[in-house]
């Protein structure tokens, strides 16, 4: 962090100030981003296919049930692992690296180790998902990959995430913008929570329901401190950039940040409400979850405040549309967390499809939609070319927006209905199951729409990549070795 004269007067201007070496930074990231985004998209297509299969199995149990490798109990955890560790992490690595490099104004000095880390990561996910389908699942939610795959992921993570710190150190910017706070908390939190969860649950299992506490602690933090933080970093960066104005009420952002980190890291255990864990754990979890109302209000002021009166810009900018969708999903998902900490509400919605709707809203409606928006803005800059086809972007947005709304809406309404019927013991369990079928069917249709959107995105990306490589490089080898002189 050498001192330099680049410091803008206002913190929020940091993201706006044109950087003289932006093109150098982008060029230094071309090879790693090609590999990371390509891997992310391949995993996304796999996850999309698996989610259609799993959704279909829920209302048609005879679908794909002649063989144990494709039974719902294996497809569902495999889908979740592919989505989280395949798509989510690769995409988060790509976006966080680019954001950190741009905000710190540091170019990547080389990418050999980073590419090696990416290869390790993808091999680890492949082995892990193969292990789940072959019957080695740990049966721990969001940690289903078997113990023989996960140490590799941990090593790979270190090899990849370290480069965000390298570009930060290499940069010449002294200001820390809100995006960077969130990137740092994500990058520092994940190795910690993942190591604890793996060691205390898989390698040296702890006693009794301490396991459930750790599992809930991990799952909550994986969402809030990793996925939500990366997406928030992208929102804080792109929202002012795309709206061409600073973040509204930016002075509140640091309060929102600390509130989210300090209380959010306790909030995940709320899902154990009413479970066989000490009562104080449930109470602390509920109290910490109520505290999320503070960052919720601050996000409203920051994001909706910035968006207010700029609706016209949504027409022209696809990245802005995706990110705006994600902002609304974030506000809704935080609200759902808070409601989930209310005893009466939890007693009904716990163990129903409502929780699945909440997860889908958080992971797809919020994180994935924001990342899509970010990638639509990042790819043209990094590859110095426009998107190959605008119509495909439109298809992607419309299919995703309708698909997510359909899935989340039907699972949420179906889930509340299911919860109310479950609470009434005079309704037979099989009648409760039958009553969920129409909702599950419309959720399947939503999953198909989502998959269509993903396909449109993937086609467009590879098309753009082909255009870019046709004019810039003649071979993959040249692409991977392309390092601008200025960064050495």
């Amino acid at each position, binding site marked *: 962090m050498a001192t330099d004269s680049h410091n803008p007067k206002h913190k929020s201007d940091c993201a706006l100030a044109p950087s003289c070496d932006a093109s150098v930074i982008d060029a230094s990231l071309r090879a790693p981003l090609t590999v990371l985004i390509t891997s992310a998209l391949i995993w996304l297509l796999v996850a999309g296919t698996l989610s259609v299969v799993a959704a279909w199995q829920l209302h048609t149990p005879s679908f794909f049930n002649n063989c144990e490798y494709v039974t719902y109990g294996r497809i569902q955890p495999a889908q979740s692992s592919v989505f989280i560790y395949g798509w989510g992490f690769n995409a988060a690595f790509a976006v966080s690296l680019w954001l950190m490099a741009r905000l710190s104004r540091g170019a990547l000095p080389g990418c050999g180790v980073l590419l090696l880390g990416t290869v390790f990561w993808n091999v680890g996910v492949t082995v892990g998902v193969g292990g789940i389908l072959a019957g080695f699942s740990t049966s721990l939610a969001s940690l289903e990959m078997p113990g023989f795959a996960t140490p590799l992921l941990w090593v790979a993570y270190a090899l990849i995430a370290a480069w965000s710190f390298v570009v930060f150190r290499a940069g010449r910017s002294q200001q820390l913008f809100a995006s960077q706070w969130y990137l740092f908390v994500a990058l520092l939190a994940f190795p910690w929570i993942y190591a604890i969860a793996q060691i205390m649950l898989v390698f040296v*299992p702890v006693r*009794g329901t301490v396991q459930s506490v750790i599992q809930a602690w991990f799952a909550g933090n994986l969402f809030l401190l990793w996925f939500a933080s990366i997406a928030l970093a992208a929102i804080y960066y792109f929202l002012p950039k795309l709206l061409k104005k600073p973040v509204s009420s930016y002075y509140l952002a640091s309060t929102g940040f600390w509130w989210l980190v300090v209380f959010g890291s306790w909030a995940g255990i709320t899902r154990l409400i009413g479970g066989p864990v000490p009562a104080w754990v449930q109470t602390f979890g509920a109290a910490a979850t109520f505290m999320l109302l503070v960052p919720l209000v601050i996000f409203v002021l920051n994001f909706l405040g910035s968006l207010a009166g700029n609706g016209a810009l949504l027409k022209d900018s696809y990245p802005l549309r995706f990110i705006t969708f994600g902002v609304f999903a974030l506000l809704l998902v935080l609200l759902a967390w808070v409601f989930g900490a209310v005893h009466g509400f939890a007693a009904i919605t716990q163990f129903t499809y409502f929780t699945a709707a909440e997860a889908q809203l958080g992971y797809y409606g919020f994180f994935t939609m924001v990342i899509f928006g970010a990638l639509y803005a990042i790819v043209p800059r990094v590859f110095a070319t426009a998107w190959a086809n605008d119509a495909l972007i439109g298809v992607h947005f419309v299919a995703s927006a309708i698909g997510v709304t359909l899935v989340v809406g039907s699972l949420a309404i179906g889930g509340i209905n299911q919860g109310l019927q479950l609470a009434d013991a005079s309704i037979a369990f099989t009648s409760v199951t039958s009553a969920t079928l129409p909702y599950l069917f419309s959720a399947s249709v939503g999953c198909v729409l989502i998959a269509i959107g993903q396909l449109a995105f993937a086609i467009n990306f590879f098309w753009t990549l082909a255009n870019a490589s046709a004019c810039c490089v003649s071979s993959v080898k040249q692409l991977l070795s392309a390092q601008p002189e200025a960064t050495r």
Partner: protein
Amino acid sequence: MNRAPFLFLGIFLALALSFVGLVLTNQISYGAFLTHVDEGEGKAFPLQAPGLAAQGKLVYQDLGCVSCHTQQVRREGFGSDIGEKSRGWGERQSVARDYLRESRVLLGSQRIGPDLRNFAARKNADGTEHTASALYAYLYHPQAVVKTSNMPAYKYLFKTQPIIGQGSAKALKLPAAAGHEVVPTARAEALVAYLLSLKDTYAYPETKNVYTAPAAAKTQPAKESHK
């Protein structure tokens, strides 16, 4: 907020607080948590699962049963798991001590199927107890037993073999090909043994005087008599 070292320190402290407060504190406080030795019965509860049931738990994990089935009975008044006008999924709520001997705790998060924590202690609708043969038939083809069931079939846990002599006592009552019978594999037998071992009926000291919502207070004496 603009100095990286302070930011890192703050993040570290926040994470450490959450780790110490939730993970370490529980790990330490559960350290003093022991099985309950009942001198009258001469056993320590919860009981160790029998060997075949322990194998069956691995089948339960490998097929991902936890995706659809919880294993936790919530207290009276929270949902309708137990108590008056309830689904009668248990005789009492699940407590932390029930899971003390389990190397992997599978509380679950979805009730797409019914809760299984106390499965073996429950009765069928007609008052009969669950039997291995009924479970085999259900796992083999759920919709043949309960028409509206949405559980997938687990036919691959069974094999068709030629009938030799009198045939297997475990054979399913199905119209199989002439001279053949459908019998459970070792995995199916283990899984069924596990399901039939799921029973939390022992009353620990901490399950006897649990808080009950005032409205349901009059059921308290009935609960006590369960022991």
